[in-house]
């Protein structure tokens, strides 16, 4: 792998190169780059190539590189994605990378996701168990409870849905897709005892009624979850 990268860096600009534009925070910082492509190549690979071959000072964040940590959220050609889960276009179209919308920018592509976590925190995201729960509950995998919960698990709290929602990133508070999805899981979880508090919150002024049916969350979720459906179900269920 190192060999591939080195030839590409040393040689003349290859025909299958990719033009990348990166939104930078520092005035005067270089924004246009051309990197050699390989297959498979993700946007994260593009960022790493830019960092290693062109500009080591570029700021971006990543950790696990396989879609589990949820820290490499950026905007690619206008829309929020996880960089590690987004393949570069095969037709050589230029790629524009910008920080995720809806969050304050810290530096270059790094954003401060505090607004997301503030909302997440509000739904009491942890289970509030009954006092006497000592043994794991016996819950059949095909029970209605699990059928309601299972499709909504595996959220990685990357904030991509928050950033793709037309409402959550705005100035008025809205719990947002991820927090509401979490609320739905806990509302359905028979081990939890804080159901009513959560239902009161989600049916309140910052809850499900602020959803405007844009479906940005569901179409952007890198884990294939459907927070919009969770919001609908919370509406029906309350």
């Amino acid at each position, binding site marked *: 792998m190192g060999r591939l990268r080195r030839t590409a860096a040393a040689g003349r600009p290859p025909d299958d190169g990719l033009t990348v534009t990166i939104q930078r925070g520092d005035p005067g910082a270089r924004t246009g780059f051309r990197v050699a492509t390989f297959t498979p190549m993700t946007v994260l690979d593009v960022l790493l190539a830019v960092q290693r071959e062109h500009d080591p000072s570029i700021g971006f964040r990543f950790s696990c590189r396989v879609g589990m940590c949820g820290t490499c959220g950026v905007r690619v050609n206008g829309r929020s994605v996880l960089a590690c889960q987004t393949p570069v276009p095969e037709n050589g179209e230029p790629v524009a990378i910008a920080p995720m919308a809806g969050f304050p920018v810290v530096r270059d592509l790094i954003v401060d996701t505090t607004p997301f976590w503030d909302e997440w925190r509000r739904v009491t995201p942890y289970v509030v168990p009954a006092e006497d729960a000592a043994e794991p509950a016996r819950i059949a995998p095909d029970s209605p409870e699990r059928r309601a919960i299972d499709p909504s698990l595996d959220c990685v709290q990357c904030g991509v849905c928050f950033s793709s*929602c037309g409402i959550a990133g705005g100035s008025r508070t809205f719990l947002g897709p991820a927090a509401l999805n979490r609320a739905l899981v806990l509302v359905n979880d028979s081990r939890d005892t804080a159901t009513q508090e959560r239902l009161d919150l989600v049916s309140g002024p910052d809850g499900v009624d602020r959803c405007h049916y844009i479906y940005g969350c569901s179409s952007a979720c890198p884990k294939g979850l459907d927070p919009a459906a969770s919001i609908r179900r919370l509406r029906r269920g309350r």
Partner: protein
Amino acid sequence: MTAVQFAFLAGLTVVSAAIVAFTALVLLSARRIDGGPHLLAVLRARLGRSPYDLAEGNRWAFYVHRITGFAVFAFLALHLLDVGLYALSPALFDEVHALYSTPLMRVFECGLLFALLFHALNGLRLLVIDLADVGARAAGRLLDGVGVLTFAGTAAGSAVILWPVFAP
């Protein structure tokens, strides 16, 4: 031009300016909140069917719904005043309403028709989405329907409205 006609046109100018300003406000704040409107991205998504652009249509519907809502409201506010003139003086009313048959006003009315149709039909679509919980994909298809109906309605209505301008 009479004084009342001048007042009406001044009011109309204010209304138009307000609509333009509101549109700019919606699109600019959208840029901050969710990345903003990407007309090209929408087209690319429609043509290339890239999966993460599934919601682009809905996103545009959301913006346009807001803008048309405001536009209809702003115009109706003015329209209430000019209709109210009848109670004051039918002559003044006639003076103002003579303006409505000028070509410029007719074009404006076509825009108004579009706004009304889209806002109403999209409102019905949102009702369906909410009640039937149809999901993102079907919501997109319903939006296609809203688009077709809106454009058909606007085209037919515009033909009627603009007919006197082009008719001999």
